[in-house]
Each structure stands twice: as structure tokens, then as C-alpha cells.
């Protein structure tokens, strides 16, 4: 069987797993050629889509299962999302280093002339945990639910002593100066310094703090302006950070797609290996449940919260992707899921007692 149509059908049959192609490839090809009208040189688009779709289904094995496709999709999606998050972290490495302390001081002098700021220091890295670059020393904090401390570093400081100007005047001046120096200023967020529901407290009299955010090129600016109240002297703090670099998006897209494809193929391999009389056929199902629980639940818990946070406050640059997935806050749960996945794969790799190839149909007795 040769010719352009045969070659093209053979190429489409690559969607099926190798063992299936060995067992049924020639038969499928024969049926395809039988069904093709004379003179046809290439498969129709409908035929091609059908072969790819059912080839991918064959990769999952368990032909009688009504749920294996759903499990595969859940695994592929969550793996793709985590792979995309890791890839975006790599993409962040293309960001310019943060402004040095001297540059930050100069920018603050443009934004709020005459105001002294303290504690302005060079940042040790683009992302830090408790002010330090990520290292093995931080593993305990990272794993045991302090992972939220791993965040973008910033260069900035707070006003020395009582702020030089009243809060309202500061906000207006900062917004004006930012615009004059080419910054895009986002709507200012106002918040009550304390909560009250009514008498004897007058909600209209509650002092209000403000957060100003702005962006210029790949630099973001955030300033907190809190008024003095109840013995509190007030607070004025500002920080410069890097906006998400453009490379993060293609990195995330490619990483996500690759992760999803690899996860689908690996899941399919393990599913095919563990069907029938495989010694681990019982153990792999609860392990899959553990993986899906520990990967999906923190993600589904955090995603709406992160979305709401972004809707509630203006963001010149969105939070990094992994924070949307609850990482590394829930990194311990993610690692438990990884452990269960590796154990499941190791069990799937155990030798099968029979050597019956995938896709073999029982012969009449």
C-alpha cells in the first residue's frame, strides 16, 4: 500500500499510540482506503479531524470507560496551567533589573519634591521572600503556608517622621507630578482607616487612606497615603516595581500548551499501562484523585479571589500568574500532588503480567 493518499493516512494515524498502530494500523488503513472514492489524493478535513480525535481517544486506552476522557482533560488543563505559571516565572527573567536606590530617590524627588524618604535600598532580586532572594533556607517558609511572602520586590521607602503635607494635598500633588513626568496614573483607591456601622460612630467622619498607582514604561509606582488619626501619626510610603515583561505572555502560552500536551500523553500512557490485569490498576485511581484534589482545589479556591482583587483595585501590572493559582502559598499541597503523580507513574511502569498489545480485539473462541 503506497501512494500519496496512503502516506497521508499513515501520517494521520500517528495520532494513535504506537502499540495500537502496530496492532490495528494496517487494518485501519485498509478500511480508510476501501472507503476512499477513486481518484482521491488527500483525506477530507472531516476524515482528518475524525482520525485525530479518535487517535487521541485511543491514546487513553480503556475503550469501555465513559469517564477517562474527562479525567484526561482535567489532568491536561491543570498541568498546562501550572506549566504556564512556571514558564511565566522564566519569562520574568527577561525583565530589567529594578531601579537602583539612587534612581528611585531621584524619581521620588520628581513626584513629591521636598519630602524625605527613609529605608530606600537596592533590591537583591526581582522576587524575594522576607526581603531575601529565594534559597533553600526559605524552603520551610515557602512550603508551610508562608509562601505568600514570596512576592515581587520593590525599591522604595516611607516618609521620615510626619509627612510634610496633608494627605489630600499630597494625593493631588503626586498625581499632577506623575502625569507631568510621563506616568500613566490609574484611578486612586480610597479606603476607610477603620470600620463602623453607625452611632456612636459617624461613617462620614472616618479618616480615609489613599493608594495611588501609576505606570511608566516597564516601571510601576505605588504610593500609600494614610492620614493621622487616634494618635497615629499618619503614613506615606512609595515603591517602584517592574511591570510584567512582554516575554511573559509567549512564555506562558508555549509553556502551557507544552505542559498540557505532555500531561495528556503521560496520562494516556499510564492509563493504557494500568488497564486490564496490571498489578497497580487499583492503586492508581485513588492516586489520581489525590493529584487532582491537591492541584485543582487550591487553584479553584484562589482564582476567583485573585480575579475579584484585580477587579476591585486598579493594577498597572497584574499579579504574576502563579499567585492566581494560589502558589506558592499552597506549594505544600502542590508538592503532595506531584508526589502522588510520580508514585502513580512509578506504579504504572511496573511490568504487566501479559504482553497483549493495546487495541487487540478478542478473537472468537
Amino acid at each position, binding site marked *: 500500500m503506497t501512494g500519496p493518499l496512503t502516506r497521508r493516512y499513515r501520517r494521520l494515524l500517528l495520532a494513535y499510540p504506537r502499540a495500537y498502530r502496530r496492532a490495528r494500523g494496517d487494518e485501519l488503513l485498509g*478500511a480508510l482506503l476501501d472507503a476512499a472514492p477513486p481518484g482521491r489524493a488527500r483525506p477530507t478535513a472531516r476524515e482528518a479531524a475524525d482520525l485525530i*480525535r479518535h487517535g487521541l481517544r485511543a491514546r487513553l486506552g480503556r475503550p469501555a470507560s465513559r469517564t477517562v476522557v474527562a479525567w484526561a482533560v482535567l489532568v491536561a488543563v491543570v498541568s498546562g496551567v501550572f506549566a504556564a505559571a512556571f514558564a511565566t516565572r522564566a519569562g520574568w527573567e527577561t525583565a530589567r533589573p529594578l531601579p537602583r536606590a539612587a534612581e528611585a530617590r531621584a524619581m521620588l524627588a520628581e513626584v513629591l519634591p521636598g519630602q524625605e524618604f527613609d529605608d530606600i535600598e537596592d533590591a537583591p532580586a526581582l522576587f524575594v521572600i522576607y526581603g531575601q532572594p529565594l534559597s533553600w533556607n526559605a524552603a520551610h517558609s515557602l512550603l508551610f503556608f508562608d509562601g505568600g511572602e514570596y512576592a515581587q520586590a520593590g525599591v522604595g521607602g516611607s516618609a521620615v517622621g510626619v509627612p510634610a503635607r496633608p494627605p489630600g494635598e499630597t494625593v493631588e500633588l503626586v498625581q499632577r507630578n506623575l502625569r507631568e513626568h510621563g506616568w500613566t496614573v490609574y484611578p486612586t483607591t480610597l479606603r476607610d482607616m477603620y470600620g463602623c456601622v453607625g452611632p456612636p460612630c459617624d461613617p462620614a467622619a472616618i479618616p480615609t487612606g489613599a493608594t495611588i498607582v501609576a505606570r511608566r514604561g516597564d516601571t510601576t509606582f505605588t504610593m500609600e497615603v494614610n492620614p493621622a488619626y487616634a494618635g497615629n501619626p499618619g503614613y506615606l510610603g512609595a515603591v517602584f516595581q517592574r511591570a510584567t515583561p512582554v516575554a511573559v505572555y509567549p512564555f506562558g502560552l508555549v509553556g502551557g500548551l507544552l505542559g498540557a500536551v505532555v500531561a495528556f500523553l503521560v496520562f494516556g500512557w499510564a492509563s493504557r499501562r494500568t488497564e486490564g490485569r496490571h498489578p497497580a490498576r487499583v492503586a492508581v485511581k485513588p492516586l489520581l484523585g489525590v493529584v487532582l484534589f491537591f492541584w485543582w482545589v487550591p487553584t479553584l479556591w484562589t482564582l476567583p479571589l485573585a480575579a475579584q482583587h484585580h477587579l476591585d483595585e486598579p493594577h498597572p501590572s497584574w499579579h504574576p500568574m502563579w499567585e492566581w493559582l494560589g502558589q506558592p502559598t499552597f506549594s505544600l499541597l502542590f508538592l503532595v500532588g506531584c508526589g502522588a503523580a510520580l508514585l502513580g507513574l512509578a506504579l504504572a511502569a511496573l511490568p504487566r503480567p501479559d504482553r497483549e498489545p493495546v487495541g487487540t480485539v478478542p478473537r472468537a473462541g
Partner: protein
Amino acid sequence: MREPTFLILTALADRPRHGYGIVREVGVLSDGRVSLLTGTLYTALDRLAAEGLVELDHEEEVDGRLRRYYRLTGEGLAALTAETARLRQLTTAAEERLRSVRPRTA
């Protein structure tokens, strides 16, 4: 049971058939309404074989093309019989209702 499954089992009811033979027979049985694609057919055959409803009968080579013939198992025959009875009962019930609504045409 979904319609393509019912048609595949029906196509195998009288004698074993190979892949393209099943596709052709399904077309005849459905008056050309159902045209099975090869990928769809083989996924269905894999499922039916895993459920014990069809099995391999024999294989032959024609013009250099491998043909495997499939046939119904006892279980497959029972499933087809049960589904046919179910559809007949539904069809009869529907016809009775239609007769009462359109006594002249039904």
C-alpha cells in the same frame, strides 16, 4: 444505546463484516442518513469489544489490504435484541399516540 452503536450491532447481526463492510451496511440500514467515519467506527468497535458485545471472527488480505471481520457475541446478540424490543415498544407507543391525534394519516 446510541444510534451508531445500534446500527453497528445490527450490521453484524446476520454475518461477520470487516470495517468498510460495516460502514457500508450502516449506510444501507439508515437509508444513507448515518455515514460512519473510519476513526469513529474503530473507537466504537474497541468499546463494543471491551464490553464483550463483538469479537474478531477472522482476517484476510484483499488487494494487499488487511481486513478483519467482526461478529456479534452472544452478549452482543442479547443486547441488540433487548434494544430492538425497547425501540419497538417506544415506536408502538408513539404510533398509537399519533393515530389518536391524526386518525386518517397515521
